[in-house]
């Protein structure tokens, strides 16, 4: 079966260090991180990646009040992606649009808020909000975007822990190829900084980052790394079949070359390097490539002591020493871990490399952990390279879900 070629034609994002792709990219090249101190309910001051996009750019005050942060981020990113795509939205058939949004989790924020609310009323549940259910249903972020945009095609979320951002794009690719939709708005979002439970959970797991300087706190591959900085954010891409994109003369960021998703089936939280390596190999194979053809690997590494080593083990197994043109980087040093948004956001940050031939570095590596010393690792300073034709984006999540997505330079 000949599969349609799928291309990325628009990007909308909000990250802790930028509210557009151009701003985000400029900060990735300039080494500008976006982590700050934040008061977390019951937990005091913690470090977090916080977004400062203007929610009222695309929502009414009432929409912001009634909806969720994840919904708001989804609406912002979707509207920005559509604007970037050059599509004339009024002319788009809304029943042929799909919204596929990856989430690590949804509903924790809203449930915690309601429990806190009724704690002020002696836990009398008659004070529990009638908005609780529409806010906490798992499809909430995509549903809010469909309401805001008037999209009447399929709009739902994809729960895939921290692999979810990649999964949004992968699922969209599949749906476009099946002819289910003609335009997909896809990627991932995170509102996780608004739930103390995520912070407390990682802290109890000894996996929550601490550092005197918030901007240095997220430091994948550094010997002194001590855990995750939890962040909010989002990135949604518009995906189209190539012939549709060309017919309207769309700008094309890149083409989906290959992907793979698999499961560790080995542990609730510990990654499995063998399965990760299998996932990456399968994605490369589906793209019709070999490892040395991959020019940028954006690693998932979250700065946990063990997780980084295990991903490096997987990457070493696939790329070894025979890939002189493969650069390896990481985005979490800048923005922390944007959870369900991570995959889609980190991919977006690397897409401009097709044009500027610069690989943004992984930052905050003062003392490289020898166990993370991969050939091709781009440390602390951007690297100009001769060729960027392929980007491999890794996103892995709890319960052992692995995703690898490859985007290639568009060549007609």
């Amino acid at each position, binding site marked *: 079966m000949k599969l349609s070629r799928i291309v990325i034609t628009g990007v909308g994002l909000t990250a802790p260090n930028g509210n557009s792709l151009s701003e985000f990219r400029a900060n990735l090249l300039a080494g500008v991180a976006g982590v700050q101190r934040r008061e977390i309910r019951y937990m005091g001051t913690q470090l977090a990646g916080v977004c400062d996009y203007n929610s009222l750019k695309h929502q*009414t005050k*009432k929409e912001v009040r009634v909806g969720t942060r994840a919904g708001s981020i989804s609406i912002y990113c979707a509207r920005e992606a559509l604007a970037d795509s050059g599509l004339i939205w009024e002319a788009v058939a809304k029943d042929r649009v799909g919204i596929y949004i990856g989430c690590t989790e949804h509903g924790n924020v809203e449930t915690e808020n309601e429990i806190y609310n009724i704690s002020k009323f002696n836990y009398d549940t*008659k004070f529990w909000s009638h908005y609780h259910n529409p806010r906490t249903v798992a499809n909430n972020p995509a549903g809010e975007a469909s309401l805001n945009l008037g999209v009447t095609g399929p709009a739902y979320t994809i729960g895939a822990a921290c692999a979810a951002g990649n999964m949004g794009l992968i699922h969209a690719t599949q749906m476009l190829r099946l002819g289910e939709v003609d335009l997909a708005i896809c990627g991932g979002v995170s509102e996780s900084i608004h739930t103390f439970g995520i912070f407390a959970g990682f802290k109890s797991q000894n996996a929550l980052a601490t550092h005197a300087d918030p901007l240095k706190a997220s430091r994948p591959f550094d010997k002194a790394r001590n855990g995750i900085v939890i962040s909010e954010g989002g990135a949604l891409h518009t995906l189209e079949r190539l012939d549709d994109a060309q017919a309207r003369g769309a700008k094309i960021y890149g083409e989906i070359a290959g992907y793979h998703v698999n499961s560790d089936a080995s542990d609730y939280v510990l990654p499995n390097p063998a399965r990760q390596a299998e996932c990456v190999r399968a994605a490369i194979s589906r793209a019709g490539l070999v490892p040395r053809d991959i020019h940028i690997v954006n690693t998932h590494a979250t700065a946990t002591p063990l997780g980084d080593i295990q991903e490096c083990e997987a990457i070493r197994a696939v790329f070894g020493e025979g890939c002189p043109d493969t650069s390896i980087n990481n985005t979490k040093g800048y923005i922390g871990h944007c959870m369900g948004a991570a995959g889609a956001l980190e991919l977006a940050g690397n897409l401009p490399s097709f044009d500027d031939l610069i690989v943004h570095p992984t930052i905050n590596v003062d003392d490289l952990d020898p166990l993370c010393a991969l050939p091709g690792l781009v440390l602390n300073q951007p690297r100009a390279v001769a060729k960027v034709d392929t980007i491999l984006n890794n996103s892995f999540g709890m319960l052992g879900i692995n995703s690898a997505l490859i985007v290639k330079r568009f060549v007609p």
Partner: protein
Amino acid sequence: MTKDECKQVVLDIIADIAPDEDLSNVKPEVRLRDQMQLDSMDFLDIVMELRKRHGIEVPEKDYQQLASLDSCAEYLTPKFDALTGKS
């Protein structure tokens, strides 16, 4: 509580639950729904905020009493007075 004060209580709640609306010229005799964007969830908000802020209970059978500012005042003023011991 006067009926005007009661209307102001309701308007203060509406200002929070419908923050995009211009409330400077609300006609008290006209149904709220006919002069601003309010849906059934918003009316549940009004009921909830009366409960939270003022300890006033509005049973479901009486929701229609909240249709306009005038009907709100007619219905709610005695409830406020009962709370404060006035008859």
